[in-house]
């Protein structure tokens, strides 16, 4: 189904770093020296989760002539901003700095990418907003990058890959949660992995398709961690956005979570209400993909089971190939829900969207 009116806010759009060369201008003197010594511009930091040539990574009619899907501003403007009549689109950059082991290198690259996004994208189209890439390998360095960006209100969110070294709720990560909360920035957990751990406790799957489908377990584990560790009671203003998660997996996971919690409350006495209610208070999900069959009743049922009108955030996942033509809205959304999903919920989630660009 097409978007029936103008002004929607797209909460998950992808921009790709075409090569390390693109961000070299934003590196400091030391890292420029490393470029010379190590020939860093030859590195390909595209993620194993999203090989640029794989079908999911770019819809055929959204692929630029040159470079990976998502590296072309004109295409983004034409095919998403204009075509979907968007008021804003939030850029999530999926790139390999979070997969490197060297913390300082990761921090330098994240900083350079964020500078590149500001200059090459945000400066060029006032409809664009962005998430802050952070080096989660080191919480202090991640906090420093958040502090550096917080003053630019076009950065509306902190971005982490769903699969990193540790689950996000762990206390070692709390400085990042604290900084995000302090600046009113949601944290987006996006599908994809640095593969520090295999996609399954039963080892390494053979296929990209299998890894992609297994993201569900990753999102579930992240919510399990955030709630059980009490991250939401420690940081009551924190919002977490699950980006590109598939949506329909949530109720089954949350019901089981509630059931187990009832029997083990003594272990986590700071979790004072059922986990599903904590999730309803603090978690949002972007819309694409909504893994549901053609029968619209299935998605309707799931949305009822999710039990909140305020959790879904419109997204196209451009340029990932989740739908064809202009069918960006899945079957099963009611008219009264559309306005919330397309506009109200994103505005409520991202308080910075209401501010004028300086």
């Amino acid at each position, binding site marked *: 189904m097409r978007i029936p009116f103008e002004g929607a806010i797209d909460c998950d759009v992808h921009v790709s770093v075409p090569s390390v060369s693109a961000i070299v201008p934003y590196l400091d003197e030391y890292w420029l020296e490393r470029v010379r010594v190590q020939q860093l511009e030859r590195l390909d930091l595209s993620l194993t989760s999203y090989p640029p040539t794989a079908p999911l990574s770019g819809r055929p009619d959204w692929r630029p002539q040159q470079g990976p899907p998502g590296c072309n501003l004109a295409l983004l403007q034409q095919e998403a901003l204009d075509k979907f009549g968007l008021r804003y689109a939030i850029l999530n950059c999926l790139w390999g700095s979070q997969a490197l082991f060297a913390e300082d290198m990761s921090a330098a690259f994240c900083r350079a990418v964020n500078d590149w996004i500001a200059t090459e994208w945000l400066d060029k189209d006032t409809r664009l907003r962005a998430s802050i890439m952070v080096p989660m390998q080191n919480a202090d360095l991640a906090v420093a990058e958040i502090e550096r960006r917080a003053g630019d209100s076009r950065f509306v969110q902190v971005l982490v890959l769903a699969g990193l070294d540790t689950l996000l709720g762990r206390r070692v990560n709390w400085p990042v949660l604290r900084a995000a909360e302090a600046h009113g920035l949601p944290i987006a957990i996006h599908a994809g992995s640095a593969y520090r751990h295999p996609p399954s406790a039963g080892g390494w799957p053979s296929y990209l398709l299998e890894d992609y489908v297994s993201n569900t377990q990753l999102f579930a584990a992240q919510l399990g961690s955030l709630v059980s*560790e*009490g991250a939401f009671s420690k940081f009551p203003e924190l919002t977490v956005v699950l980006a590109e998660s598939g949506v329909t997996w949530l109720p089954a996971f949350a019901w089981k979570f509630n059931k187990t919690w009832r*029997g083990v*409350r*003594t272990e986590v*006495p*700071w979790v004072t209400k*059922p986990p599903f209610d904590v999730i309803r208070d603090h978690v949002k999900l972007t819309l694409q993909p909504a893994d549901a069959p053609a029968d619209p009743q299935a998605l309707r049922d799931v949305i009822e089971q999710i039990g909140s009108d305020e959790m879904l955030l419109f997204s196209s996942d451009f340029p990932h190939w989740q739908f064809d033509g202009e069918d960006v809205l899945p079957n099963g959304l009611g008219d009264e829900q559309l306005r919330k999903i397309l506009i109200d919920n994103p505005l409520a989630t991202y308080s910075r969207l209401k501010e004028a660009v300086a």
Partner: protein
Amino acid sequence: MAKRYVVAKLGEIAPGTSKLVNVDGKEIGVFNVGGAFYALLSKCPHKGAELCKGKIVRRVASDEPGQYAVIPDSEMIRCPWHGWQYDLRTGQSWCDSDNVALRKYAVSVETGEGLLEGPFVAESYAVSVDESYVLVEI
């Protein structure tokens, strides 16, 4: 009409322990909590387990993650199956207090003298006027 049943001699249920009895076809747990007696239906509202065969535990509260405080005088019975916990004094469930509570019964302690005189004659016990007895009202 409510009836009262003698379920134990006073000294039989030590503080911190309980006795399972069958009264009028119902299994009931009778608990001694610091000298006061409480009686709860021994059937968990969740899935029907014999609730009063579970452990007596206490409520734990927390101001923030990593901090744990055991609440005094908060005894609860923990269901031997899925671990749902119910306040012994009130029957209130800890995990779903809005919706779930246990049936509780009034408990009294009477001397043998009182039991012999009134209509409440204990037939199962050789009631002695020097002893006291625990009664449950159904």
